[in-house]
C-alpha cells in the first residue's frame, strides 16, 4: 500500500435531524415540507468517514482529501460553514437537487464523473470513502455504484476501523450481524470503504482550519457544475416517516434496576 493516499469522501447533505420533518408530495416526487429552508448537516454517516479520512491523512503526510458533495449550492455553502472548521479538505461541489430521493444510479454517475475529472487524482492511491448507510433517504447503494463506475472492485461496507499493515495492504473491520465484526485484509488501494460510525469523536471546531478551507471553498462553489439527475427512472408509491412513540414520566424514587426492568417489559411487550 502506498504511503500516501488520495482520499475522496462522498458526502451528501441532509436536513438537520433535530428539525420537525414532515413528508410532502410534490410534482417532482416525494420530499420534505420546506426542505430548502431547513438547516442542513453533512450526512452523519458520511461525516464519520470524513473524520476517519482526516486522521488517516494526518498520519500519512502528503495525502490529500477531496470532499465530493451533491446538493443545492446554497445549502452546501451553509453546511460548509460548520464542516470546514473541523478538518482540512478540498471541496468538489456538484450543484444538484435537494432531498434524498433521486435515483442512486443517476447520483452515482454524477459523483463518478466528478471524481474521474479531479485534477491530480492518482487512482492507484485512491480510497473512496463514504457512509455505509445514509440519512438522505437514499437506497444506501450510491457509494457502491460510484465505486463500480470508477472500476473499483474491492469494496467494504459497515467499516469501523482500518489498520495499515506496512506492506501496502490493510485490515478492515466490517460490521456484520449479531454485533460482531468481520475481519478482512485488502491487498491495497484503490478501494471503497463505506463507513459505519468509526471510532473517532467529532473534531473540535478550529477557526484556523475553517479559514484555510474557506479560501478554496468559495471559489469551488462559484465554479460548481450542475448535475441534472434523471427524475424519471423511479416512481415512489408511498413515503412515510417512521412512527414515533413518546411517553414521558418523571420518576424520582425508582432504582436503576427497577427502571431497567420496566424498560425491558415495555420493549418486550412491543
Amino acid at each position: 500500500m502506498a504511503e500516501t493516499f488520495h482520499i475522496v469522501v462522498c458526502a451528501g447533505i441532509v436536513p438537520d435531524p433535530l428539525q420537525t420533518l414532515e413528508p410532502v408530495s410534490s410534482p417532482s416526487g416525494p420530499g420534505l415540507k420546506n426542505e430548502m429552508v431547513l438547516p442542513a448537516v453533512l450526512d452523519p454517516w458520511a461525516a464519520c468517514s470524513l473524520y476517519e479520512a482526516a486522521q488517516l491523512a494526518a498520519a500519512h503526510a502528503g495525502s490529500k482529501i477531496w470532499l465530493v458533495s451533491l446538493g443545492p449550492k446554497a445549502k452546501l455553502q451553509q453546511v460548509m460553514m460548520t464542516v470546514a472548521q473541523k478538518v482540512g479538505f478540498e471541496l468538489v461541489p456538484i450543484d444538484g437537487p435537494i432531498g434524498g430521493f433521486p435515483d442512486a444510479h443517476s447520483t452515482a454517475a454524477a459523483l463518478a464523473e466528478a471524481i474521474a475529472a479531479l485534477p491530480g487524482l492518482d487512482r492507484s492511491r485512491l480510497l473512496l470513502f463514504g457512509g455505509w448507510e445514509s440519512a438522505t433517504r437514499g437506497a444506501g447503494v450510491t457509494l457502491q455504484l460510484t465505486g463500480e463506475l470508477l472500476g473499483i472492485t474491492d469494496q467494504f461496507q459497515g467499516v469501523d476501523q482500518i489498520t495499515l499493515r506496512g506492506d501496502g495492504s490493510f485490515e478492515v473491520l466490517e460490521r456484520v450481524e449479531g454485533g460482531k465484526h468481520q475481519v478482512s485484509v485488502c491487498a491495497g488501494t484503490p478501494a471503497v470503504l463505506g463507513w459505519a460510525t468509526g471510532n473517532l469523536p467529532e473534531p473540535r471546531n478550529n477557526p484556523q482550519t475553517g479559514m484555510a478551507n474557506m479560501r478554496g471553498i468559495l471559489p469551488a462553489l462559484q465554479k460548481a457544475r450542475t448535475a441534472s439527475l434523471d427524475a424519471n427512472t423511479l416512481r415512489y408509491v408511498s413515503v412515510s416517516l417512521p412512527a414515533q412513540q413518546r411517553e414521558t414520566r418523571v420518576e424520582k424514587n425508582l432504582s436503576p434496576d427497577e427502571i431497567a426492568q420496566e424498560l425491558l417489559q415495555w420493549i418486550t411487550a412491543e
Partner: protein
Amino acid sequence: MEVDIACVGFGPAMGGFLTTLARQWTEAPDDPAFASRTMPGMPLQVLCYERADDIAAGVSGVVTRARGIRDSFPELNPAEIPMATAVASERVFYLLDSVGASRRSLTLRAADLLLRSLGRVAGVRDSAFELPWTPSFLHKHGGLVLSLGQFNQWVGSQLMAGGLVQIWPGSPVSEPIFSGSAVQGIRLADQGVDRTGAPAEGYMAGVEVRAPLTVVGDGPVGAVSQAIDRHRGLPTGHAQREWALGMKFVIELPEDSPELEPGTVWHTIGYPEPEIFGFLYVHPERLVSVGIFVPSWMGDASRTAYRYLQHYIQHPALWRHLKDGTLRSWGAKSLQESGQHGEPFLCGDGYARIGENSGSTNMLTGSGVDEAWTTGVQLAESVVELLRAEKAFSGENLAATYEARRRASWVEHEAREAKDARNGFQGGLVRGMMGMALAGLTRGRLHLPARAPAAHQQIRPTRSGVAANELAKLCAAAQAGGRPLHDAVLSARGWPEVAFDGQLLVTQQDALLMGGKVQAMPGFADHVAFRDPRLCAQCAEKTCIAMCSGQALTQGTGGVPAFEREKCIHCGACLWNCAHSPGGEQANVEFRAGAGGLHSVEN
C-alpha cells in the same frame, strides 16, 4: 489569527451590519478601502462567530414595523421568507382571569367583576375584553410578522453567497482581548475541557482572533458584552435592571380551527398574571407564534414561564383557536428591557456595540428587531466611511461616525421618547400602563418617576401568595428532590394541573425534544456557574430554577442548583433571576459563553 473585522453574534443587528458592508463591497469591489490590511491582496477579512449551532437556531418570532429592514431590502417580498407575512390586523385584549388563581389586585378584581357583569354589552367574549382603541405607538401597521430564525437564515444565505463574509456557527466567543481600555479582538471558548473548564481529552485552547475592529452584537446576555461592561463600566447613571423572559410556542392550527388570517397580531394583558403580557402572531400555512413575557418587575419569587405559558394558551380567547393544534416548536430568550437606561458606551478603541445589548430596544413600542437591524446598518456605513478616509477604528472616530449617525436617527429619537415609559411598572400593572400611556401620548415629555432597583432586588420572596407554614413544607419538599417549588406553589395557589395531551400540552422535558430540540456539543465548560455557593445554600426560593426555560437548573446537592449544559437553551434567564448578590448590581449567577442550545428554525 488576524482578520480585519471580527464580529460576535449573528442576529438582526449583525445581519444589518454585514448586509450593508457586503453590499457596499459588491458595488465597488476594487475600491482600495475594501482591501484587507491583514491579508494583503485579499478583500477585507470579515469573520462572524455565532454561538448557536446554526445561524437560524435559537431565536424568536416577532412582529416588527420593519422600517430599517425595508430600507435595506426595498423590494422585500415576505413570500420569499418562510413564515413571514405582512401585518394584516392588530388587536389588544385584556384577558379576564378564567381560572380564578391569578394574583390580581383589588383594582383588577373590580375590573374583572364589572366586565363580567356587563358581558357582551361591553364586548366581553371568551373572558376577553378587546380594547376599543390603542395608541398609535403600539401599532405595527405596514410591518411584518416574522420567524426570526427563518429571517436570519434568509439574510445569512445571501451574505455567505456574496463571498465577503464568513459566518461560523458553533463558535462561542468567551471574551474580548483587552489592551488597556482598547479591544484588540476576541478569544474563542476553550474546547476539550471538563465541566469546570479544566483541560481534558482533545483540549484546544480558545483561538485568539485579533482585529482592528471588533463588532459586538452578542445579544442581551452575551459574554463579550458583559466583559466590556465589567471592564469599562456603564455611563454614569446607567444600569441594566429591567428584563423579561419571552417564551413562546409555534403551533400548527387544526384544519377546522376558526379562521385566523395570516398577519393577525394580538397583544394581551392581564393573564395568566397581571404582570405577564402575551401575544399571538399568525404566520402563513396555519402556523401561529403564541407566547408570554415574564418581566423582572414581577416580584414573585416563584415566577416561571413554561407552566404559565401552558395556562395562557388555554385561556378561552386563545384556546378556541389553538385547541387540537400541534406543538411544532418552542423557545425562549431574555429581553434586555432597560432601553436607554441600560445603554452602554456604544464604542471605544477597537470596538463598537450594536443591537439589543447596546440599548437599542424601544421599551414603549416593544420593538427591538428593527432597531437592532438599523444600528447594524449605521455601523456598517460608518465603517465604510472610516475605511475610505483611511482612519483608524478608534473610539473617537467611531463616536464621530457611528455614534453620531445613531444619535441623529429615528432609533435614538424614539428611544429617548421611550426612555421612561416603563417607569410605572414597578408599582404594578395599572400604574405601569398609565405611565406608558403618559409617556407615549406626550412623546416622552411626561413620565412617572423611575425607581427600578437592581434585578436581584426586584424578587420579593415574601410575596408567594401561599401561607407561610405551607410554603415551608413546599420548600422542604423541593429541597428533598420532590416537585419543583415554583410548580408546587402555583398548584397551591389554585392553578389547575395541566392535562398533558402529548400533542400540544406536553411536559417541559418533552418540549425540549418535540420542537426546540436542545443539543450541546461535548467538550465545552459549563457556562452557568454560581459565584458564591453559600448564597445558594441559604436561598429557599431558587427563582433561577423556576425561570429556567429548559429545566437545565434543578435542585442540587448542598442547596446549590445543579446545571445540565445539554438542556440549556441559552435564554439567560438565570442571570437576572437570582435574588442574592455577592455585591453590587450583579446577582450570584454567572452566565458565560457556551455552545449548543435550541435547534429550530421555526422560532
